[in-house]
């Protein structure tokens, strides 16, 4: 036990040293480990359709799983997918339990201090609410002082709470939160605008609407260990994401998984487009 604690402490110390001297030297530990064992362990979501979820045989599928498979294919190694949750994904990466993650993570300043998020970002989404049409909300201020359902671990819960004084009632699962909205335990359900959009278009939420303008349009980032952000692993992922944008891979995947086309991907695709292509 003491040994384990010691090794954990020295691990923390090492990580601290590595963090302060990121650019100074690259040990490429994780990259080398992946190459040595011929397998990359990637953390993905299992509860975020259509980004990462399970089919009824239990296999992980989704847009981010396709991306993870592409990462492994480009590295020339096998892939092992590990389901992660919003609450533990960064810890798993820090511990080394996963080598990298593509797990619907919003790219935030505080998260960049913990994990290495190489640019360019691969997606973006904003915050919006789903609310009954009957309530006729038109601006965020209309929600002040009211109860709003949310998902545990979403970074915008706190932002919305502080900015508009709403009272967030957080649930572990989306189904529970949406049931609470129907049961009128809250006046609205705050979540990603892309997810709400697909719910509304499913025809099961006819009495509901997405009445507000999306806020906090926040890019998503995949992550590698912090120490390797500016080393081989981080640089490789930057290059791969650049090409995903340039070659329209992400736009194709978006269409494949039935995600509403976002202006962000179209814009990035145009921005990085090959100047010699016809």
């Amino acid at each position, binding site marked *: 036990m003491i040994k*384990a604690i010691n090794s954990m402490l020295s691990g923390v110390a090492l990580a601290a040293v590595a963090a302060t001297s990121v650019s100074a030297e690259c040990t490429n530990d994780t990259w080398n480990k992946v190459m040595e064992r011929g397998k990359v362990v990637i953390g993905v979501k299992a*509860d975020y*359709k259509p980004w990462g979820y*399970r089919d009824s045989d*239990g296999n992980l599928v989704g847009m981010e799983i396709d991306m993870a498979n592409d990462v492994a294919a480009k590295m020339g190694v096998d892939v092992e997918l590990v389901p992660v949750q919003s609450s533990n994904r960064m810890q798993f990466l820090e511990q080394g339990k996963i080598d990298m993650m593509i797990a619907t993570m919003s790219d935030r300043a505080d998260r960049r201090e913990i994990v290495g998020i190489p640019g360019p970002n691969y997606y973006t989404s904003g915050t919006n609410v789903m609310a009954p049409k009957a309530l006729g909300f038109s601006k965020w201020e209309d929600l002040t002082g009211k109860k709003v359902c949310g998902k545990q671990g979403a970074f915008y819960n706190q932002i919305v709470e502080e900015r508009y004084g709403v009272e967030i009632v957080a649930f*572990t*699962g989306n*189904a529970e939160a*949406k049931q609470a909205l*129907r049961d009128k335990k809250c006046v609205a359900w705050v979540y990603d605008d892309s997810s709400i959009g697909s719910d509304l278009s499913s025809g099961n939420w006819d009495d509901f609407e997405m009445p507000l303008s999306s806020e906090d349009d926040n890019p998503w980032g995949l992550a590698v260990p912090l120490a390797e952000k500016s080393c081989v692993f981080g640089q490789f992922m930057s290059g791969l994401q650049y090409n995903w944008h340039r070659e329209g891979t992400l736009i194709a995947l978006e269409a494949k998984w039935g995600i509403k086309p976002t202006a962000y991907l179209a814009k990035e695709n145009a921005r990085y487009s090959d100047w010699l292509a016809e």
Partner: protein
Amino acid sequence: MKRIAGLNAPARSDMAVLKPFDVAAHSPDGYIFTRWVAALPWWTPFAVFMTMAIWPSIAYAQSNYSTAQAFDALWRWTPFLLKSGFFFNVLISVLAMTIGTVLGAALGLAQISLLRPVRAGSWFVTQLFRNSPWLVLLFIVLLAFPFEIRLFGGVIRIPDWIKGVIGLSLPVMANISEVVRGAVQSVPTAQWEAAESLAFSRRQILWQIILPQCYKRMLPPWMNWYAILTMATPLCSLLGIEELITLSRQAMESEDNHPELLVPFFGFALVLFFAYCYPIARLTMRLERKFAVKS
């Protein structure tokens, strides 16, 4: 047969007789939960499930997604939920019970040691784990244990569910420790004295005379703890360990999180746990009655 008034014949008088208050008869025993489960008729889970199947069609007439579709989804997911979900609940409970029993038996015997430090130490460990919330113990184990161990140059990976086993075996260990201590102490001291007078050593008395009498007494509480442990395994879902509840949530996500899915999926989990624990509870109560010390 001789007729005794008030026993096998009607009392001769209806005068109230104030008997001493029997505290033990009025305080809940360790079986309170098992007794309650065992008292339920066997068709309870099916009745619950049927009610749940009918009730939503009245309650949620607000969507195109029907209850039939929700049950259809449940049907599609059932093999996966059983194979990768409930199987792990059973596996975690069996392994945690095994580890908890072995360690708990040792700890329980240490509690009746003649050496004072051993007795005090094992008492402290028992009380510590017996009175800590199970979820807290699970969190500590999950966060404090490494995810892989390096041994002789090889790397052994410890999957999360193994940590769940370790975390759950700690409170089981402490409670089994109390069961063992209680069972040993329930054997009349006269037996110790009689055995001692026949020149048995302490170890011989314990292994050859006292413990053989204890197994029967320990069996019902041991099974009682197993049922409680099994029903505590969904706690693991809070830590992201993959078991029935975790995977039910993921399945509902894949089916677009329709609120209509909540009742069929969690109802299914309820029926599974009931079907597994109910026979154990019935058997426990039967053994309890059979082995009860006649007073």
